[in-house]
């Protein structure tokens, strides 16, 4: 056993209100520099939708992530023999059209416009060329099902849905959508790190945060093609790749990352998990249907004696182990099995997990009404407006069972609390539901508390980071934001 610690995350999608506060917090801190205008390290997508960059989930198009070949896994996008042929043009690299051309408005014109018969208006100008542009897309172009005949209908997760289900998903009074906030998953088996010919990307030993060394990056951009979540971006001004740094300067001073801290819906949880690095390769190689259980299995019980011993042997400080014991992520992912990895079939083993959203029921059951006194207390989960297949494609590596388990448990907890506080459901039925959903009363109360009553300290359990013991000497990234990358010793320069 090779025990490692990682700062890991859970997003509770039932709580996301799609306000984009997280994206703006991130943008204001990290990507308001030249060359980063188009980057959204944190973005919030509407599902069904094609997201940002458009259709990033379609690996036929982008060739991100890993694939199994001859009993091993290999990168889809690149390999030793292919780097050279793709130097000048990688056909699977997202282009500006797949993201969007960033723009601002010519506000000066409002002050400088000559006198005329009409009031002046600030025209949109490109932040790349500085010329006037006609805006054709944006980072959140399909927000709230905007343009659904083009965007929603082309969501790759619709695969396997019946024609009837697809039709329902986009017809008035039956449609539904939910929000899907995304950051870098700081994967256990990051494709971006594996793809870099210069070895510029690395996963920090002490907390698993995946970073791009701005000094070593040589603009190969292999990482951009390799990341199946399209969460590495190329800075066209410095000529270096950049990505979400999980606000490590904030974490090192005990603060939650900005998107977590500012989250209005309080959907975000952050905590340490311990995992076994020895079995990582074998798990990444498992058949698709075993990946979720395999990854859960890699996550170790932080109270187990053997694990504690292994942690000590690997030099993981006691305070980090203590944080792992209090980790909300451990509860959601491993104990309650409520949180699921997004598209684990890409085999990067993402360390950001999602609690799938509950949805309204279909309004068009037989005879126009739902039979709510059915013996099957969970019928509305199978009849939910978001088809189970859709959620399974997104969070279950295609398996509906994993998603159904999480939704049934969530529903049982709600009904149990309803029985306790409102009293219009009898306690006996509620307890039967808990049993059927594989949940005890104690667990239900714990889920309820961490979901609804959680304090800041319960949501973000941040261990001391011991940076004084780490190798790199860092400069304060807030101080050198315009000239350097993220706290590296000298400013990034374009070229080799």
């Amino acid at each position, binding site marked *: 056993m090779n025990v490692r610690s990682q700062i890991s995350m859970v997003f509770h999608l039932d709580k996301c209100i799609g306000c984009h506060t997280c994206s703006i917090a991130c943008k204001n801190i990290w990507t308001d520099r030249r060359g980063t205008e188009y980057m959204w390290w944190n973005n919030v997508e509407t599902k069904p939708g094609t997201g940002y960059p458009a259709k990033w989930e379609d690996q036929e198009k982008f060739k991100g992530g890993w694939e199994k070949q001859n009993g091993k896994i290999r990168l889809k996008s690149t390999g030793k023999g292919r780097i050279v042929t793709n130097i000048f043009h990688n056909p699977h690299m997202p282009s500006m059209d797949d993201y969007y051309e960033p723009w601002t408005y010519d506000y000066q014109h409002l002050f400088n416009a000559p006198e005329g018969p009409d009031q002046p208006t600030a025209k949109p100008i490109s932040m790349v060329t500085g010329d006037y542009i006609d805006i054709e897309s944006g980072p959140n172009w399909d927000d709230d099902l905007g343009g659904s005949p083009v965007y929603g209908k082309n969501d790759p997760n619709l695969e396997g849905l019946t024609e009837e289900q697809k039709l329902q998903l986009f*017809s008035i009074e039956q449609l539904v959508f939910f929000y899907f906030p995304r950051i870098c998953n700081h994967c256990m088996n990051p494709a971006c790190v594996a793809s870099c010919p210069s070895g510029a990307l690395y996963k920090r030993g002490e907390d698993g945060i995946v970073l791009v060394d701005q000094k070593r990056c040589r603009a190969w951009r292999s990482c951009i093609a390799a990341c199946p979540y399209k969460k590495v971006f190329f800075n066209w001004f410095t000529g270096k790749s950049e990505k979400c740094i999980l606000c490590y300067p904030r974490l090192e001073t005990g603060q939650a990352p900005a998107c977590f801290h500012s989250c209005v819906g309080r959907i975000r949880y952050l905590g340490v998990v311990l995992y076994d690095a020895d079995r990582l390769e074998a798990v990444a190689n498992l058949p698709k249907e075993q990946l979720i259980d395999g990854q859960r299995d890699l996550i170790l019980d932080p109270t187990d004696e053997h694990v504690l011993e292994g942690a000590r042997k690997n030099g993981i400080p006691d305070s980090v182990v203590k944080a792992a014991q209090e980790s909300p992520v451990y509860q959601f992912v491993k104990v309650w099995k409520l949180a699921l990895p997004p598209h684990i079939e890409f085999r990067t083993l993402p360390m950001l997990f999602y609690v799938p959203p509950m949805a309204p029921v279909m309004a068009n059951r037989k005879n126009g009404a739902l039979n709510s006194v059915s013996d099957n207390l969970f019928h509305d989960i199978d009849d939910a407006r978001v088809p189970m297949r859709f959620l399974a494609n997104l969070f279950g590596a295609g398996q509906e069972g994993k998603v159904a388990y999480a939704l049934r448990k969530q529903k049982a907890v709600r009904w149990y609390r309803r029985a306790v506080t409102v009293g219009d459901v009898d306690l006996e039925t509620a307890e039967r539901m808990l049993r059927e959903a594989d949940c005890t009363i104690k667990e239900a109360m714990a889920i309820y508390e961490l979901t609804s009553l959680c304090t800041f300290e319960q949501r973000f359990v941040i261990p001391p980071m011991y940076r004084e013991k780490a190798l790199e000497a860092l400069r304060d990234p807030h101080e050198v934001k315009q000239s350097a990358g993220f706290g590296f010793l000298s400013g990034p320069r374009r070229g080799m």
Partner: protein
Amino acid sequence: MHNDHGVVVTRAVVSARIPPGVCIQYHSPERTFSVPKSPLRNDRRAGGHNSLTRTRLKPNFLAGGYGQFTFHFNYWGPIGCNRDTHILVRKLPVLKW
């Protein structure tokens, strides 16, 4: 969008959320940015979110000192549910700033 009362030039989004024959305009941005000129207004700048509706005040709107009558005269006007009206939607033939 236009009717016998005014013109608004704005970006349109087609969505499964909005039934055919219906348009919804949120409380909208000011004309100070990204609003082109409209041929329906003899190439003058198109209007804003108040252009298509008339201000018909009922006396009981004035009761209670609510925000819409106390902040700025731009805010004078009936609330959303009293602002439904008939409009025509056309694609802008040429973009003129």
